[in-house]
C-alpha cells in the first residue's frame, strides 16, 4: 500500500471530514501525500476554506495529523482485511462520475468492480413483506445473469435484494454509511459477513466511523454512481431512496419503480415516481432485456424447481403466487398434516420456502 493511499486514509479520518471537505483538501494539493505533509506542517491555506471550516478545526486537524502513524494505519487496515481504492487504480469505478469520492474502503471480492453490468435495487427499511419478496426475486434474477446487485445493506428492501443475489451465489455490492468495521444495523451481521466473503462491501468512511445520519445521503450517491440503472422496490412519500433517485437522474441513469397498491404507504413514493415518469418495473426479465439485452430468463424459474417431486413442485408454485396458511395449503393439496409438515422442512432446507410456524412463503 503506497504512501499516497495511506495519506488519503489519514486525511479521511480527520475530525468532521466528509467527502466534500476531503475533496477540498485535495483541491489545495492534488498529491495526497504532499497534502498531508502540508497539513501537518501548518502550511495549509485556510483563508479560502469553505464555510464551516474554522481556524480551530484546522488546528485540530494539524494536531491529529501529527499523531498519525502510517504503520499503525496500515496494520489496522490489514487486520480488518480492508483494501483502499483511489482514482489512480485501474478498478476505480468512479472515473467519469460527476461527484466522485476521493477514497474508497473495500472489503471482499474486488473483481466485482470489473463487471460492467450492475443495477441498484433499493427501497425503504419499513417495507411490506410483499416488497421484500419482490426485492429478493429481483436480486436473485439479476444475479443469476451475472449482473451486480448494488444496494445499501439496510433493513428491509436493501437486505432482501442482497439476500436474493447471495441465494444463487451471484455478485452483489453493498455500499454502507459507516466504517467497514462498524456493522450496522447489528441484526444484519450475518448478511454483512456473507457479503464480505462472496460479495463486496464499499464505504467512503474511514474505519471506526459510526453510521452517522449525514453519511447516508453521500452513500446513496455512490449507489447511484455504481449502478447502470436503479430499481426502487418500495419507498414512502419521502426517504433516502428518493435521494438515490435524484442522484441517478443527475447522472442520466434510468430509474425504474415497482408499482404498488395506492393504499400501501410503503408504495406511495414509488407510485409517485411512476406518475412522474419513472418506468414501471414489472418483470426482472424485461429489465434485463432492456438494459443489458439479456433475454430468455424464463429458465430462471424452471431451473429452480425442475428436480423436485410433483407435490413439492405444486407447493412451490402455489407459494410463488401468494403466501399460504398451513391449514389452507393442507386443505387444497389434500395432504395429511405430518406429510405436509415434512415437505415444508424439506423445501425450507433446500432454501425454497420460509416457514414461520403457520404460514408458508417463498424464501427471502
Amino acid at each position, binding site marked *: 500500500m503506497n504512501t499516497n493511499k495511506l495519506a488519503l486514509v489519514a486525511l479521511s479520518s480527520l475530525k468532521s471530514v466528509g467527502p466534500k471537505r476531503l475533496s477540498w483538501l485535495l483541491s489545495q494539493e492534488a498529491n495526497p501525500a504532499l497534502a498531508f505533509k502540508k497539513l501537518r506542517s501548518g502550511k495549509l491555506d485556510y483563508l479560502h476554506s469553505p464555510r464551516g471550516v474554522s481556524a480551530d478545526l484546522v488546528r485540530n486537524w494539524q494536531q491529529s495529523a501529527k499523531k498519525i502513524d502510517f504503520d499503525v494505519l496500515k496494520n489496522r487496515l490489514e487486520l480488518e482485511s480492508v483494501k483502499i481504492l483511489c482514482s489512480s487504480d485501474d478498478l476505480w469505478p468512479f472515473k467519469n462520475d460527476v461527484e466522485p469520492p476521493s477514497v474508497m474502503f473495500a472489503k471482499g471480492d474486488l473483481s466485482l468492480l470489473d463487471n460492467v453490468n450492475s443495477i441498484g435495487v433499493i427501497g425503504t427499511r419499513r417495507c411490506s*413483506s410483499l416488497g421484500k419478496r419482490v426485492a429478493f426475486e429481483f436480486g436473485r434474477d439479476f444475479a443469476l445473469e451475472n449482473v451486480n446487485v448494488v444496494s445499501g445493506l439496510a*433493513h*428491509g428492501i436493501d*437486505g*432482501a435484494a442482497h439476500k436474493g443475489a447471495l441465494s444463487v451465489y451471484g455478485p452483489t455490492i453493498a455500499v454502507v454509511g459507516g466504517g467497514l468495521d462498524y456493522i450496522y444495523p447489528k*441484526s*444484519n451481521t450475518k*448478511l454483512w459477513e456473507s457479503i464480505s466473503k462472496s460479495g463486496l462491501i464499499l464505504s467512503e468512511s474511514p474505519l471506526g466511523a459510526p453510521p452517522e445520519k449525514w453519511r447516508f445521503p453521500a452513500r446513496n450517491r455512490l449507489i447511484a454512481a455504481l449502478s447502470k440503472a436503479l430499481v426502487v422496490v418500495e419507498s414512502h412519500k419521502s426517504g433516502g431512496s428518493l435521494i438515490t433517485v435524484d442522484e441517478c437522474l443527475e447522472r442520466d441513469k434510468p430509474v425504474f419503480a415497482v408499482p404498488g397498491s395506492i393504499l400501501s404507504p410503503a408504495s406511495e413514493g414509488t407510485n409517485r415516481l411512476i406518475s412522474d415518469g419513472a418506468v414501471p418495473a414489472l418483470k426482472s426479465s424485461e429489465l434485463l432485456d432492456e438494459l443489458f439485452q439479456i433475454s430468455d430468463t424464463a429458465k430462471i424459474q424452471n431451473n429452480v424447481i425442475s428436480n423436485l417431486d410433483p407435490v413439492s413442485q405444486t407447493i412451490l408454485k402455489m407459494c410463488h403466487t401468494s403466501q399460504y*396458511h*398451513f*391449514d*389452507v395449503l*393442507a*386443505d387444497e393439496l389434500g395432504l395429511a*398434516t*405430518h*406429510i405436509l*409438515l*415434512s*415437505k*415444508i*422442512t*424439506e423445501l425450507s*432446507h433446500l432454501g425454497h420456502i*420460509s*416457514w*414461520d*410456524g*403457520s*404460514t408458508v412463503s417463498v424464501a427471502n
Partner: protein
Amino acid sequence: MLASINTAVIQGYEGHPVSVEVHVSNGLPGYTIVGLPDTSCREARDRVRSAILSSGYKWPQKRVTINLAPSSLRKEGAVVDLPIALALLAASEQIPVEALNSLGAVGELGLDGSLKKVPGLICLASAINAGSLIVPSEGASEAPLGFTGQVRSAETLAEVAGGLAGLSEMPGVVDVVKNSKCLQQPDMSDVAGQGLARWALEVSAAGGHHMLMVGPPGSGKTMLAKRLPGLLPDLKLKDQITVSKIHSAAGLKEVSEGLIKRPPFRSPHHGASMVGILGGGTGAMRPGEISCAHGGVLFIDELGEYPSRIIDALRTPLEEGVIRVSRATRSVTMPAGFLFIGSMNPCPCGKGSTDCRCSLSQRKRYSRRLSGPILDRFDLRIEVQPPNPVVFFDDKPNESSDAIAKRVINARLLAAGRGVNCNSELSGSQLECYAPLTDGAKNVLKHALEKGEISGRGFKRVRSVARTIADLLGAGDSIDSQTISAALSLRSPLKSVFEGEQ
C-alpha cells in the same frame, strides 16, 4: 397432670406430625406455649381459653405449660387449637386422659367453641399417626382420603369433649368419597379449523412436549390451551394423591369432593409474583402455581407480559420436575412436573407481520422477554392464525376430545412400554434404543444442525417429538426422514418474532 395428643402442621404440601403436650401443675396461675409457634399459633392461647369457657368447661387456676414437639419444627396456623384444647381438658382432669390415647385432632377454634375449617386437611391427615382422627365438619370429607383410620367430624368443641368424656355420643364417622365428581372440561369439538394447532396439541398431549403458540389476539390460543387437559389421560393413583395434597395445601377448593382424578389446568395472571408462581412465602411455604399444575398443564398466557426473571426461573423446574424452595431456616421440595404451554402475541400491537404498527425496536424489546434457553425448551413452536372464516359456517363436525384422547392414550401406552410416562422423558440413551434414525433422517438432522436451526438440546428434543409422531401414526420402530422433518417443522424458529424482521 400431663396429657398429650397427636396432630400435624403443613410445610410446603406435606404434613409433619406434631405432638401437643399439656402440663398442668401447682404454682402461680400462668399459661405459656413453647415449641417454636409462630404468631397465628401463639394466638391459640386466647382462642382456646375462650372456647373452653364458652363450651361450659373450667379454666384451671394453675400453671399451664403447652409444648409443641418436635420443637425444631416451626408451627404455623390455627390447626393446633383443637388438640391444645382437648389435651388441656384432659390434663386438668375434665375428660379422661386415656380417651386421648391413639387419637389425633386438627381444627381451629372460634371463641364460642365452634370448630372451623383448616386448609390442607388431606396433607395433615396423612401425617397424623393415630387410630382415629377428629376434624371440623366443614370440608371433613378430605380427611379420609389421606387417613387410614377412622375419621370423625364435629361442629363444636363441646361435642368432641362430651363424646370423649362419655357424656354424649361420639361425633359421626366420615366416609371416603368414592366417586369424585369430574369437572366438565371444554371439548375440542368447539374448535373450528386450526388443523395445524389441533395436531400440535395432540402431539403435545401424547408426548408431554412443551408448546409455544404465537399469534394475534383472538386467534384461539387460549381456547386451544384450555382444551389440552381434556386430551390427557386420568392421573395415576399416586399422582392423584400428590395433586390432591398440593391443591389442598394451596387452599384450592376442589379436593373436598374426592381425590383429583383429572390433570389440573393452571393459568396464572402475569401480575403474579415470583413466590406465587414458584411457591414459598413467609409462613408455611405454600405451593406455587407450578406445583398446582403438577401432573397437568401450566398455561402461561401473554408470555411477553411476564417479567423475564419469572419466566427464566421456570427453567430448573422444567428440567427437573420439582421445585426446591430454600429460605434461611428451611427448604422444601415440591413436585412441579407440568406440561408448559406458553402463548404470546407476535408483537406489542398484536397484529403480526401484515399490518403491524410497531417499530423494529419495539418488536425486539418484546421478543427479548423470552430468553433463548426458555425458547429452546419448547419442543413445539407454532404460530396460530385466525381460522379461515369459512370454517365457522362449515357443517363438518370437528373431532371431539374423546377421539383424540384415545390416540393419546395409545401413544402413552407405547411410552409406558419404554419405562417412561411420555416420550419427552426419554433420555439420550433411551432415544438411541427406541428412536433409531434412518440414514435419511440423519441427513435431515445434520442439515438442521449445520444451519443452526437446532441446538444440541434441540437435537434430542426433535428426536423425542419424532418418536411421538411415529407413535401417533402407528409407524414402525425407526424414525424416517419424513417423521423427523415433520418434527422439525413443528419446532419452527418463529423467525418473524424472534429474529427481527429483515
